[in-house]
């Protein structure tokens, strides 16, 4: 087992897919030892102790070490190559790049989106913290939606195919993506996983992202929209604590409402907080255990399907 990510060969993997051990070694496996050896020649051990930007050191630092300590070389009186440059005497040159850091992911996401539209497929990206009830919600939703249209699921988790198996038990095709140490799904993972699903023309694809309220917000997967699931056991102020996720989502599903009699939960405050970061966010209240509120959820999905159809028709005119 890989000691970095815990998966069998080391990289993020789609279920039954082969691992690319070489690229993993390049980007992950060597970096910890190498980082400690190269940038900490004065005896620090490992990554945890190396990040001590605020410590007061009095030993010699190479310029690279300053950079490892948070890029302080530029701020600390001109030490390092940037401070040594003399106009007209230097071989260095500055080139303008102006490229989006997430441009590659966004390009693949655009390809995914075009493929989904060509296949007449509505795609939702479900996000939440771990334990909010995404899989339970999905099992109920796909069991009922599959009666009227093709439905498929891509499951994202660090490890195990437990969730994909729960979806398959509901009679719906599902592919599990194990992200290894990665905290989110990216567009390339979805492109590969989608090729492993049967054709779902005219149907719905749900992507269940890794349980994490921070990182998945940054990555477009090519979905029609993001749906954030918040359970009432998590407290009212999650939208304020993790605003990026709620800002990126079109719908907030408040789950486990059947537990409301047992908890002091202020629904109005939760909605108000979510709309502070996203005034346009839709809100639905459900119980994945009892099925309460699922009629409204299906009506919302149907509205999204009609909206996508109109957009596609408009672009084809």
């Amino acid at each position, binding site marked *: 087992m890989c000691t970095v990510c815990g998966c069998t060969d080391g990289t993020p993997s789609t279920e039954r897919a082969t691992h690319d051990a070489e690229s993993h070694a390049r980007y992950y496996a060597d970096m910890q030892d190498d980082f400690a050896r190269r940038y900490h020649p004065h005896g620090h051990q490992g990554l945890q102790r190396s990040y001590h930007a605020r410590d007061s050191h009095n030993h010699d630092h190479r310029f690279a070490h300053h*950079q490892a300590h948070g890029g302080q070389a*530029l701020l600390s009186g001109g030490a390092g190559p940037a401070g040594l440059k003399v106009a007209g005497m230097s071989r260095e040159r500055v080139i303008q790049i*102006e490229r989006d850091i997430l441009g590659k992911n966004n390009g693949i996401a655009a390809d995914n989106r075009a493929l989904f539209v060509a296949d007449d497929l509505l795609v939702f990206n479900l996000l939440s913290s771990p334990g909010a009830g995404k899989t339970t919600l999905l099992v109920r939703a796909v069991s009922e939606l599959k009666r009227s249209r093709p439905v498929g699921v891509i499951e994202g988790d660090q490890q195990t195919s437990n969730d994909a198996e729960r979806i398959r038990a509901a009679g719906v095709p599902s592919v599990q993506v194990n992200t290894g140490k990665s905290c*989110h799904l990216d567009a390339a993972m979805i492109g590969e996983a989608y090729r492993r699903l049967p054709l779902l023309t005219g149907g719905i694809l749900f992507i269940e992202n890794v349980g994490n309220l921070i990182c998945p917000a940054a990555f477009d997967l090519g979905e029609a929209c993001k749906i954030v699931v918040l359970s009432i056991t998590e407290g009212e102020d999650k939208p304020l604590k993790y605003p990026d996720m709620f800002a990126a989502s079109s719908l907030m599903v408040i789950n486990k409402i059947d537990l409301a009699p047992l908890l002091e939960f202020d629904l109005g405050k939760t909605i108000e907080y979510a709309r502070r*970061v996203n005034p346009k966010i839709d809100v639905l209240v459900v119980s994945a255990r009892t099925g309460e509120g699922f009629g409204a959820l299906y009506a919302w999905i149907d509205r999204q399907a009609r909206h996508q159809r109109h957009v596609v028709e408009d672009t084809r005119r």
Partner: protein
Amino acid sequence: MHEMAICLGIIQIIEEEARHRSFSRVRSVCLEMGALSHAAPEAIRFCFAVVATRTVAEGAVLNIVELPGFVWCMSCSKSVEIARRGECCPRCGSYQLQVTAGEQMRVKELEID
């Protein structure tokens, strides 16, 4: 820790540029990061040093230009600056805000040999 994935994206961009423009060493990298973007500059600085190892950007100095976040306040009908999502309009206290700038994460320029 998606900053690690973001830094891998930075290195991919630099290596593509190195292939196209035929350079073998980067001395410094300048990034632009908006206040309303998805990553923290401190975490980017830490991850970049790790991910740059054994690439053309090994040892490169990272310079991050932090750009302010701006929103359009629907109550004031004015553009106002906010430091982070979830803040209200500093003029009127409204949360009816639409982000107009400050979400970018870009590799702006490279200083190369």
